[in-house]
């Protein structure tokens, strides 16, 4: 195919200028909302599994090998293959089967970074907290987690990136969301729709990235992020 510069701009005008693309079940607002809902649900589930597990493994040091294996495997596993296989085996009757690969591929990023964050806390800081009479749980909650927060949030951001991308791919097996424009557009060789959907997903991913960078600024303690000089 390969179109000229001008034609591609026309494609975008054609896609975004079409009023039919702005309402109804195929409309951009609803697709955007779907993509947001799947992504938030998958990220919440992944965080629910990965953060406690990462804190526990980081705090106790048990099962570190598991972390390394999970991280490497998640990188090598092809997302499309996992989505197709799981949806095929569990059926397309509900959204739940698709959420499994979304969550499974997001867990390692959060797990690894939470673990690294906790492990990376200065041992002297940890000992000082114990020395002040804090219990194991208090040390974790009041010292280790705040100091490890930048990495925990980084893990969440990387997981969100992964989820937004995988949710787009999962449109192939029938999931709603912005990926639909690419999959449906390709099926009928409607390239303006493919390009329009791609641009929407890129904007969505950038917005998510921006949100997380802002959250990192707000949530991380000034002493940890070194915005305030510590004597």
């Amino acid at each position: 195919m390969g179109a000229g510069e001008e034609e591609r701009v026309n494609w975008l005008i054609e896609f975004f200028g079409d009023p039919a693309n702005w309402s109804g079940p195929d409309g951009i607002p609803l697709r955007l909302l779907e993509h947001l809902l799947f992504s938030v649900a998958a990220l919440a589930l992944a965080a629910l599994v990965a953060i406690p597990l990462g804190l526990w493994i980081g705090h106790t040091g048990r099962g570190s090998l598991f972390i390394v294996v999970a991280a490497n495997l998640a990188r090598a596993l092809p997302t499309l293959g996992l989505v197709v296989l799981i949806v095929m085996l569990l059926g397309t009757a509900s959204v739940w089967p698709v959420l499994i690969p979304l969550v499974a591929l997001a867990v390692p990023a959060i797990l690894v970074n939470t673990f690294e964050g906790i492990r990376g806390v200065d041992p002297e800081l940890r000992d000082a907290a114990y020395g002040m009479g804090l219990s194991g749980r208090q040390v974790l909650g009041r010292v280790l987690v705040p100091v490890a927060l930048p990495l925990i949030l980084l893990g969440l951001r990387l997981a969100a990136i992964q989820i937004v991308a995988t949710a787009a791919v999962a449109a192939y097996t029938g999931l709603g969301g912005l990926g639909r424009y690419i999959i449906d557009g390709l099926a009928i060789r409607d390239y303006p729709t493919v390009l329009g959907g791609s641009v929407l997903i890129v904007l969505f991913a950038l917005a998510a990235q921006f949100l997380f960078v802002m959250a990192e600024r707000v949530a991380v303690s000034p002493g940890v992020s070194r915005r305030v000089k510590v004597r």
Partner: protein
Amino acid sequence: MGEEPSIWEYFTRNWSTGQPGSIDTLLGDHIVMSLLPIVAALAFAIPIGLACVRWRLLYQPTAGLVNIIYALPSLALFGVFLAVTGLSQATVIIPLTFYAVAVLVPAVVDGLRSVPEHVRQSAVAMGFTPLRRLTRVELPLAAPVVLAGLRVAAVSSISLVSVGALVGMGGLGYLFIRAWQIDYFAPAIVGIVGIVLLALIVDGILVVSQRLLTPWVRARRSG
């Protein structure tokens, strides 16, 4: 486990059929589309990384750009490039090169920064010209960190190529489309196993080459 032979059968029957969807052809395409971006990205990342270390002001904006590129979903990027390069391997190879550059630039910068200042100064004192210092001292010492980045980039690239199947260029990823079309899981398993194995082999080759290229790392550890 009565299903195992059928997966194996699917593999052997479709290995070398001479047809377009033959697994050996898909594997060849997969290797080209995943490793070409890595080679290209290394060629871009080394000068970019050098520039970032040489001119510190460049690093912040470059790191920001790298973060943005890394956040772009692969399918969307393939969709955008489909409009530019059409149905060709470039549609997959160019976006994957971007991702690999995004992984390798920080690795090159970290690697070069890990070279101790006294080593650099020793090289100057020994009369090394800047170019010889770079090729003989700095780049070799940066190699372990760069190779670690290369491993991450290569494995991600191998797994990401399969998403290209959705835009018609996915190497082994085609097997996932095939599985979905004929509603039979054997091709999907062959595809997943094939891609993970390819990733493991390439990763293994990089680990071995890291040991061969940087023997001093092991010597230091054991001694």
